[in-house]
């Protein structure tokens, strides 16, 4: 009798789990079919690129610039919604503008901090252009990344598919966890990136200037060496007004105004943005994309100095650093900001008094 009850209990638990999975599956299916509430940025971008369900797609962007646009296969309603959701995920990864977290496929659960969003690196929702509509060099365009995906990646030693690259972004740049390759979260971002490449008429396997980062190696400078003190001074001059003291980021009204560049909300030590892992990428990003509105105004050495300074501030350990480094970084992240504030009070006070 006892055995029968035990077997019944196990079967009942399995039945409940099965019912729960059916319910969750149906919930996801309903979310796929639901109309998408676009963020203001996505409404503007996708409207400008003429995204609509139709048999053929002709890019208004290409038509306006070149006088004609090749007809491409159009999109079904399901495709349009996937592209819209993908755009929303890039623009608002943390779901600050979403009414329910499922609208962004719970992207937040794959991110540890509260700041990281795809469009912090992939600016202008992965499609940064100047006032004349020209894509900007080294601006991490998602459309250009898609056409150049699947190539050999020298950092991982892999032929890196686009989907796997997205996983790396979640693990390292967002200091988080890996979504499944077939997750809607990944597939929708791929759909959006593919649409961008159609809207800009990019061809498979071609290299475009806006693809990836325009890396800055030490050999691109006067080889003065990267300097923490110069970097800190430049940070205070050029970056602190947005990114705040200690590069901890700024938040207003519950929304991230400028993301953290160090501390618990920043990318981790396994990210390619981390100077000690890859010393050419963050300087390249800074020179080509920062400060907003004044892109390409910093000298190469200045970008390297800022990157060097930022990478010396404490940040989370990556998955390859091990528990001792993780512990050390946690201690530094908690202890250093109050110490720096205290030191700054002590060092700035006499000067103020002296001036009076």
């Amino acid at each position: 009798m006892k055995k029968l009850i035990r077997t019944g209990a196990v079967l009942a638990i399995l039945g409940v789990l099965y019912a729960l999975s059916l319910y969750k599956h149906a919930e996801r299916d309903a979310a796929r079919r639901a109309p998408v509430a676009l963020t203001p940025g996505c409404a503007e971008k996708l409207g400008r690129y003429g995204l609509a369900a139709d048999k053929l797609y002709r890019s208004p962007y290409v038509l306006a610039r070149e006088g004609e646009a090749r007809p491409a296969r159009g999109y079904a309603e399901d495709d349009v919604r996937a592209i819209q959701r993908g755009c929303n995920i890039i623009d608002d990864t943390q779901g600050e503008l979403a009414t329910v977290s499922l609208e962004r496929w719970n992207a937040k659960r794959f991110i540890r901090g509260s700041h990281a969003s795809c469009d912090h690196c992939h600016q202008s929702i992965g499609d940064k252009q100047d006032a004349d509509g020209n894509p900007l060099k080294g601006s991490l365009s998602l459309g250009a990344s898609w056409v150049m995906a699947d190539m050999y990646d020298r950092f991982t030693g892999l032929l890196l598919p686009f989907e796997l690259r997205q996983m790396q972004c979640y693990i390292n740049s967002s200091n988080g966890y890996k979504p499944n390759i077939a997750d809607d979260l990944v597939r929708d971002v791929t759909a959006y990136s593919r649409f961008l490449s159609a809207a800009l008429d990019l061809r498979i396997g071609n290299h475009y200037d806006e693809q990836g980062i325009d890396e800055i190696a030490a050999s691109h400078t006067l080889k003065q060496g990267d300097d923490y003190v110069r970097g800190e001074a430049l940070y205070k001059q050029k970056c602190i007004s947005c990114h705040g003291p200690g590069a901890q980021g700024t938040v207003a009204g519950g929304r991230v105004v400028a993301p953290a560049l160090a501390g618990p909300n920043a990318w981790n030590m396994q990210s390619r943005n981390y100077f000690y892992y890859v010393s050419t990428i963050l300087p390249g990003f800074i020179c080509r994309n920062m400060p907003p509105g004044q892109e390409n105004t910093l000298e190469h050495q200045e970008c390297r100095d800022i990157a060097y300074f930022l990478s010396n501030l404490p940040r989370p350990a990556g998955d390859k650093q091990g528990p001792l480094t993780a512990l050390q970084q946690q201690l530094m992240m908690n202890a250093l900001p109050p110490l720096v504030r205290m030191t700054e009070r002590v060092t700035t006070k006499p000067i103020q008094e002296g001036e009076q």
Partner: protein
Amino acid sequence: MRGINASARAAALVAAVAGIVLWAHTGSGVPAFRADVRPEPGWERFRADYGISHFGDDGQFVRAVQNGYNLVHFTGRYAPRFTRRTAADRVNACASCHTVDELAYSFVNSDRYDPRFGQRMSFEDHVRRCYAERLDGVVPTVYDPAVRDIRLLARAVAHHLQLGEGAVR
């Protein structure tokens, strides 16, 4: 069986398992690891015609494309785990139904809603279905080189044809 003691039975069982593992490892005729890919008939011609050597920065990509070529043309030999087709079957390889150009067009038109299945289908989804249905075999995972390298082959051909997203013939 009663005459055989327990330790002899255990030894026989271990020997049987080891024998099966050895047979599975060596019996397929496919080495566990290959640093290079065997050039099959037609590869050099294909490589020259489609400019494969000029695509990709590294030999890894070209090797993967070569493996993709072998998978498409000699599926039974290069993906024996995922197909039951043999040389005796009329349809026994991807190339029995598709040209490489068609695969490239399929690649740039993938990740779209397919009314036959009532859902959005990726290129990998289609390849896996082909293994399961047309090739009467087993579904590989999406990470498997038997899927990935066909995508890379399609990408290389799409580059040669200078196709963009959604290109129509």
